């Protein structure tokens, strides 16, 4: 008897589930039909505005679909219908679809922003995947904007996703920003940060700025309600040696993830006019210590060159401004290529391979930091990091002497290698000054070795 009751209640339950699914499907079909109808209307720009599918049986513009989708938002007394409506009418631009932009975009799309723009010119790479969680392996080698847009659409087809597959420049920033209410800075370099902040001041847009590196993150809302801009805080750009990128310094994937989520939160708060945005304050996230600090920062600076009282900085000045020169840092992500040495103090990776094959007696010094050396290294190389070369130059001398004695040869060469061929030049310069004029560096470093000689050599 008991099993029959169980069986019938299971069937009843399944009928209910199917009925509910059928109801949802029918509702979805009718919403899509009305969306299609709108698209076919003349004078419609093809934008499927989420609120246009609404029948007028509610005192507000949320459609049945929206009520169901965002029900947990609507149930929040402090957010509710009004918050959701404001959000659905807002437009947010996320600059950068990387470690910060990925979670920010996911949450902004899911939350029901009306229009969501994505700016990026990069393609998805395998070494992005540990933190840029909006992209899937299938998109490796393809545009980050296309990849991010596809994911956003698959999460919420009612949000209008706008793809800006281009690098943000002074030439296009004003036009792109003009289409959005709120700007989210999810970029990874200093010149972009100044450019985005200045553009927000010129156009009067609030800026949700996040940054992450290593095991630390920072978050602030700039240019909001009379609050400071990025330049009020940092009128002088950091020295170039202080500008670090994830590609050089590393970053734990979840750290930008946390900051990107907080950026989405601040953008949602501003769009829906809920709560107190993080303006005039800076949030500092310390992953190792599991600590979040919020410090009060200065207000708007009267003397600020961009947002200050006597500022002449307008759209025209913005378009003329050279952010790369100002920060001494390129906007593009291509790594720096130094030329410190004369050509005869350098050899290519192929030349080094030939000398290695011919058995030429030499010492190969790898000047990368120790934790880089542990990732991968060339056989028989001696690790003396550039930062400690001055104090450890003796180790190179000993290695040379040892080779000279072994080989009965007093013309043992010194070659220096690093990751990309910049630090190796600095090291060779130092060694030449210290009495080793024949020291040479390997052009392009280990990346050059992988490209020219050994494609199986791991890159990182």
């Amino acid at each position, binding site marked *: 008897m008991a099993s029959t009751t169980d069986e019938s209640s299971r069937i009843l339950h399944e009928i209910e589930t199917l009925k509910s699914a059928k109801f949802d499907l029918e509702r979805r079909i009718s919403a899509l039909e009305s969306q299609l109808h709108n698209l076919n209307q003349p004078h419609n720009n093809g934008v499927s505005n989420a609120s246009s599918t609404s029948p007028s049986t509610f005192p507000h513009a949320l459609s049945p679909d929206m009520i169901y989708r965002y029900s947990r938002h609507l149930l929040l007394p402090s957010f509710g219908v009004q918050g959701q409506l404001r959000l659905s009418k807002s437009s947010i631009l996320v600059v950068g679809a*990387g470690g910060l932009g990925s979670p920010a975009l996911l949450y902004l799309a899911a939350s029901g922003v009306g229009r969501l723009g994505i700016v990026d010119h990069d393609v998805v790479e395998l070494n992005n995947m540990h933190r840029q969680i909006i992209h899937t392996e299938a998109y490796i080698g393809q545009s980050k904007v296309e990849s991010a847009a596809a994911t956003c659409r698959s999460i919420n087809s009612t949000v209008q996703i706008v793809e800006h597959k281009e690098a943000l420049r002074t030439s296009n920033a004003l036009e792109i920003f003009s289409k959005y209410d709120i700007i989210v800075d999810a970029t990874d370099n200093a010149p972009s940060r100044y450019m985005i902040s200045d553009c927000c001041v010129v156009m009067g847009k609030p800026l949700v700025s996040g940054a992450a590196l290593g095991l630390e993150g920072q978050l602030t809302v700039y240019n909001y309600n009379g609050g400071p801009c990025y330049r009020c805080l940092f009128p002088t750009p950091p020295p170039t040696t202080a500008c670090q990128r*994830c590609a050089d310094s590393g970053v734990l994937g979840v750290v930008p993830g946390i900051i990107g989520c907080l950026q989405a939160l601040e953008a949602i708060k501003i769009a829906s006019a809920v709560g107190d945005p993080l303006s005039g304050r800076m949030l500092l996230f310390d992953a190792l210590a599991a600590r979040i600090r919020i410090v009060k920062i200065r207000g708007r600076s009267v003397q600020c060159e961009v947002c200050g009282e006597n500022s002449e900085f307008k759209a025209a000045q913005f378009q003329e401004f050279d952010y790369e020169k100002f920060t001494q840092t390129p906007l593009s992500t291509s790594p720096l290529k130094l030329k410190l040495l004369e050509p005869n103090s350098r050899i290519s990776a192929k030349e080094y391979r030939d000398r290695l094959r011919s058995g030429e007696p030499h010492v190969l010094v790898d000047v990368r930091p120790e934790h880089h050396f542990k990732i991968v290294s060339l056989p028989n190389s001696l690790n003396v990091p550039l930062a400690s070369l001055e104090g450890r130059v003796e180790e190179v001398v000993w290695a040379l002497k040892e080779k000279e004695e072994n080989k009965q040869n007093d013309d043992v060469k010194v070659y220096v290698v690093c990751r990309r061929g910049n630090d190796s030049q600095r090291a060779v310069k130092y060694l030449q000054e210290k009495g080793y004029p024949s020291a040479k560096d390997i052009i392009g470093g280990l990346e050059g070795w992988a490209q020219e000689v050994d494609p199986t050599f791991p890159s990182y």
Partner: protein
Amino acid sequence: MKEQEDGFVSADKHGEDKVEQLVQIKTLFFARARDLTGTNDVLLEIPLGSTTKDCLDKIIGKFPRLEEILGCVVLALNEDYTTDSTIVKDGDELAIIPPISGG
């Protein structure tokens, strides 16, 4: 408490028998400032009535490499906005926060 000649004391000895006329300030380093100093914080002793600028000068004396970034940092005293001329008090926390650019 064994005070070093340069006025720095190790953090674990904080809070015991204070030297007259001196105040103890805990300085917190963030981001690039951590890399350059190799530490998260340092405790320094400085004469009563000193300003945040005096603290910074003393810190640069100990960590000269910090000087290159001090033109581009946010300073916070006890998690609040501060200026060079603010007088520091015993037990204050001075945070040196360079901007992070990465993402």
